[in-house]
């Protein structure tokens, strides 16, 4: 068989492996009790003082297929600022709020819970310029998860925008759009992530 010229050879992504039970040693060492190496764990704060936008607290719980808390997981979040701009070199539409970080990393506690302070993200354009409803991306890694799981948390107080969102529409086809909606009450949003079972969260392949 003729070989492809080298400039067309396909390289393959490095395969994923589970983050394992000791993920906290590498990703949140201070939280795991190993202090003195890093001044602080990365990703503790998503926003800084003076950030523009509506302040909210997001409470997340991660649950396995036996209804047990996933006590040893780490969740990373990624979101746009209040104007829908990402704080990223790959964002070419403008500069994000200087007091906005947009990325966070949170280890779950013994009850599988984690929580963070942020601002409600603005809407971001999706395919063909149609606006996506405001959402926060979440990536979950742990022992027993072979490839990190990506999902989105949308907001229950955005019913109109959610109804027009393309990703939620895709999830609705299998009745799973509800699994991606965080419940907003006052300044608090509650979001349960089910890895498996009747209420299994819709996870993404993007």
């Amino acid at each position, binding site marked *: 068989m003729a070989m492809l010229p080298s400039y067309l050879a396909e*390289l*393959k*992504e*490095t*395969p*994923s*492996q*589970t*983050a*394992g*039970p*000791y*993920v*906290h*040693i*590498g*990703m949140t*060492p201070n939280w*795991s009790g*190993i202090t003195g*190496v*890093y001044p602080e764990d*990365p990703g503790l704060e998503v926003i800084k003082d003076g950030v523009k936008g509506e302040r909210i607290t997001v409470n997340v719980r991660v649950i396995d297929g*036996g209804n047990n808390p996933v006590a*040893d997981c780490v969740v990373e979040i*990624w979101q746009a600022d209040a104007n829908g701009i*990402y704080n*990223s*070199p*790959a*964002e*070419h*539409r403008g500069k994000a709020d200087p007091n906005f970080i*947009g990325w966070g990393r949170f280890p779950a506690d013994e009850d599988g819970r984690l929580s963070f302070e942020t601002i409600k993200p603005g809407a*971001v354009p999706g*395919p*063909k310029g149609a606006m*996506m409803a405001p*959402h926060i991306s979440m*990536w979950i*890694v*742990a022992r*027993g*998860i*072979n*490839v*990190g*799981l*990506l999902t989105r948390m949308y907001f229950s107080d955005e019913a109109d925008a959610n109804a027009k969102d*393309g*990703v939620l529409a*895709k999830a609705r086809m299998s009745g*799973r759009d509800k699994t991606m909606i965080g419940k907003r009450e006052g300044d608090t949003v509650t979001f349960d992530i089910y*890895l*498996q079972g009747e209420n*299994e969260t819709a*996870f*993404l*392949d*993007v």
Partner: protein
Amino acid sequence: MSATLPNRVEEAPGFVARDRAQHPAAFTPGYKSTFLRAPKQALLSFDATLSERTGPAFGHNMLGELDNDLIVNYAKPGEQALGPRIVVHGHIIDENARPVPNVLVEFWQANASGRYRHKKEGYQAPLDPNFGGFGRTITDENGYYWFRTIQPGPYPWPNGVNDWRPAHIHFSIFGTGFAQRLISQMYFEGDPMVQICPIVNTISDPDAIDRLVARLDMNNTIPMDLRAYRFDMVLRGRRSTFFENKKEGN
């Protein structure tokens, strides 16, 4: 060239679809922890949007001087971690063979006896008072990284009656887009434990497993000091943007 195309989209392009055959399935019975943690529904597949094409960036100024030196970053002044001294280095490129500069790479591992510094660790092997077991670095302008450490030991774990992990180092890597986020593990060339490990064997393609095995690199070994292992990683590539769909007049 693409600047002259009228349809050019002014945003970071999307990604080549992830080849799931190169990765472990979610549910892999040989690794028991997946039984209750593997999603059973199909993933929702769609082309990455701005939410996944963008991702966080980290500055070199976040790094401490010893962050990429596990032999001393936790050690008492003047002391060092015990074990076979190695440097692990490599190139981070994407599927289009483009170097990935300025991205955060984090790593964690057991000590030379196979013991982690963790409250839930049940293995009787001793802790090394001079070894914390983690570090981090940021790739240079050409996508290269390196760190100094000791070769970790194999360790037993509760899965089957007598399962042992091969010596390995855990890696966490950021790309330029959140969809490139990756966690994996590096193994060592020639280790007979690799082929009998239930976690390694969650990957079904032997060529894919082979890409997680670091090669002994005598050319970069420092005589009378440490050996080198080379471990390159590939992140998902971005597509070209030549003819990306876009509404007229946008």
